[in-house]
């Protein structure tokens, strides 16, 4: 399939170039945009592999949600563009170390699984016409991987709690509207009728 190969190489090249630009452009907003392009190309490659559910979820979660958070943070921090690259040389060794460790981890997993040569990655069988990636994932996730699924729920819960712990600050003098209080307000609590003598009128 020539056309598939063309698509594969086109998106791979876009992905590698975009990923390089993510770390090399000066403006962090551009970095985020290039990262989005990287995710898109990755999604296209996954679709080529027949993993359409994963590909679209990648766009939905990373492009649609995580990158929005990145942009928000960039705008919130109001990064001074001239100072962004200052620590580049100083932090380079540390960065390279982290990258090396991650690469080593990937290689260890591959070696452990006994997949060291190109022949260990056969060309996947063509998928049948009624194959549904979503249904397949659902079947696996909700039978075989039920416990990890529950754990994911716990992790999400922890994420919520952590987000609050990190960002919530009680501020003084903040006024909020309490709808139950407003609804329950009674005229007896608010209005006081008092008797007053009327000026200029004589009591008889």
């Amino acid at each position: 399939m020539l056309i598939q190969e063309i698509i594969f190489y086109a998106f791979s090249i876009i992905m590698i170039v975009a990923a390089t630009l993510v770390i090399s452009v000066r403006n962090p907003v551009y970095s985020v945009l290039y990262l989005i392009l990287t995710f898109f190309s990755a999604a296209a490659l996954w679709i080529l592999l027949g993993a359409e559910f994963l590909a679209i979820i990648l766009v939905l979660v990373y492009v649609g949600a995580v990158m929005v958070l990145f942009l928000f943070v960039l705008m919130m921090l109001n990064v001074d563009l001239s100072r962004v690259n200052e620590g580049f040389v100083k932090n380079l060794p540390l960065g390279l170390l982290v990258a090396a460790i991650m690469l080593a981890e990937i290689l260890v997993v591959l070696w452990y699984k006994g997949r060291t040569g190109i022949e260990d990655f056969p060309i996947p069988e063509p998928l049948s016409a009624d194959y549904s990636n979503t249904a397949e994932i659902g079947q696996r996730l909700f039978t075989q991987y039920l416990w990890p699924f529950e754990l994911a729920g716990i992790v999400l819960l922890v994420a919520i709690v952590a987000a609050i712990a990190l960002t919530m600050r009680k501020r003084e003098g903040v006024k909020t509207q309490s709808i139950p209080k407003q609804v329950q307000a009674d005229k007896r609590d608010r209005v006081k009728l008092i008797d007053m003598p009327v000026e200029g009128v004589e009591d008889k």
Partner: protein
Amino acid sequence: MLSEYWPVIIFLAISVGLGTALLVIGGLLGPSKPSVEKSSPYECGFEPFADARMKFDVRFYLVAILFIVFDLEIAFFIPWAVVMEDVGLTAFAAVVIFTLELAIGLAYLWKKGALEWE
């Protein structure tokens, strides 16, 4: 399955092309006489002071994090909704517990006042 994605690629290309074409046409047809007054950002009558790109309330950041969490939850719900009948009641119970976990999170947010905007 892959052939189904051809129209998608064409749609993406035409949509982006349409936007770009309109901008280019507008740029070519419209006049271009920039002046200081015209290019100064909108303000209510006074000269703009300071950079407009100011810092924002941390609340927007919290909304974005919560959005990710709940978006992920939807991503987990979708495959379940598709295979619901095949995986049966055990999976349903698991999903109920999963929802409860998130409900606890939401209740906590509520209690902490993280959902209050002023």
